[in-house]
């Protein structure tokens, strides 16, 4: 069983961070994992995406070109990758930033106004984790249990005070 996930958006949205969290969660559950970022030279803006594979088997290519799961956090990402998702796959859409609907009919689509929820709750930088909360709920092979340990791994040592708010964001997505 292998789950190939593509997180895509623009730089500064925490695309790489969300991917890292999911990869670490798999690692701590003794699964095979890989995380591969792809981004431009900009710190903010520009396109950013990352390939995450969580698998029971050793991983061959770490590049996800046909994802089982696509997390699209801006319109160019949805335009670019919608047709690459495997049939029967899942697409998670930040519906605050993407006003159009997914055209495919052979995939499950989840619309979450992640950026709007994040702004309302005063955690505007955590739309990435809200949408990831929903992802963990809807992709059974990932699951929501055991989020604490991987969070502690990916939140840097000097920002450990942000652990709780990350957890809150994940739960907001889970409950949406």
């Amino acid at each position: 069983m292998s789950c190939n996930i593509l997180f895509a958006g623009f730089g500064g949205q925490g695309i790489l961070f969300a991917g890292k969290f999911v990869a670490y969660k798999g690692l701590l559950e003794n699964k095979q994992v890989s995380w591969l970022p792809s981004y431009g030279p900009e710190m903010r803006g520009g396109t950013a995406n990352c390939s995450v594979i969580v698998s029971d088997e050793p991983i061959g290519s770490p590049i996800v070109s046909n994802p089982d799961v696509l997390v699209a956090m801006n319109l160019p990402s949805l335009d670019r990758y919608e047709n690459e998702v495997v049939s029967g796959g899942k697409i998670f859409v930040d519906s605050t930033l993407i006003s159009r609907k997914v055209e495919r009919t052979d995939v499950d689509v989840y619309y979450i106004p992640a950026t709007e929820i994040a702004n309302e709750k005063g955690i505007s930088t955590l739309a990435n984790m809200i949408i990831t909360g929903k992802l963990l709920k809807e992709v059974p092979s990932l699951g929501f249990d055991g989020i604490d340990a991987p969070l502690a791994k990916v939140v840097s040592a000097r920002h450990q005070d942000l652990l709780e708010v990350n957890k809150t964001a994940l739960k907001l997505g889970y409950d949406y």
Partner: protein
Amino acid sequence: MKGNEAIAEAAIRAGCMHYFGYPITPQTEIAAYMAKRMPKIGGVFLQAESEIAAVNMVLGVAATGKRVMTSSSSPGVSLKSEGISYLAGSDLPALIVNVQRGGPGLGGIQPSQSDYFQAVKGGSHGDFKKIVLAPSSVQEMASLTSTAFDLADKYRMPAMILADGTMGQMMEPVELPEPNAKSFDKPWALTGTKGERKHNIVNSLYLKPEELEKTNFERYERYKEIEENEVLYEEYLMEDAEICVVSFGITARVAKNAIVEARAKGIKVGMIRPITLWPFPNKALRAAADKCKAFISVEMNMGQMMEDVQLAIECKKPVYLCNRVGGMIPSPEEVLAKIESVNEGGDK
């Protein structure tokens, strides 16, 4: 752990206490890691004013017999070429890491394998080789770093890790090698005579052609020994293979996916993955040439390794090229399509 960080930590565990570098994407995490760790363990991290300065600092430390390294990416490695030739000419062990990006010129910042020739054919002036290791996983980024230091010390010559942007940037679980600074006798090192021995000379200048010729011949005797004893490669599903894919680094992993799919379609295909690019697995390829009907070289350049495959098998069988360049990575589907077309008779 990121591939770049795995190299840095493995180097420290191999007893490398000196790092000199200059930042360049996509290898900067190596320098960043060293900057953080070296001061804590009493080592030296120095960001030089240029790549050229950095490689010459490496030469200085190498002359004292200490383990030392530098790292860069393609354009930066071109700048280091002069120093690498001097290291080879002075018979000094050192590790140079190249996390390749697209070229030529400043190129781009996405992954590439287009420095293959530069790495395995010398890459700078003079007759010389360096040991070139091509990791295909974050695990190998760590373990081959240890191997590189050992081989460099054993044969008194520079060694290179030839990785690419994907290997440097990706994260995978890794088991780090145990701290192990194998000790090699280095009677040639400049450690101070303390008035007890004749002074050593480390130098690459020989004005008498007879002497310079002798050093070249001796060096190539050593290279022969390395070609005999130090070849590393992986064979994958080669027992009954009729088509042999040859690929290294990240493209070998893409090719593996394609081979699994091709096997599911009943195509007898396997892979030889060179781990040492120099010395190249010539014997294994020659043996495969007796059994296989065709070869496919999968790489991210315009067919540089393909030429070494042709040389290794003495052009006994056709060698086809499956490549993407400029920062593009071939997809498993592209490799599969090539395997299928070669299986049906080839499309050279």
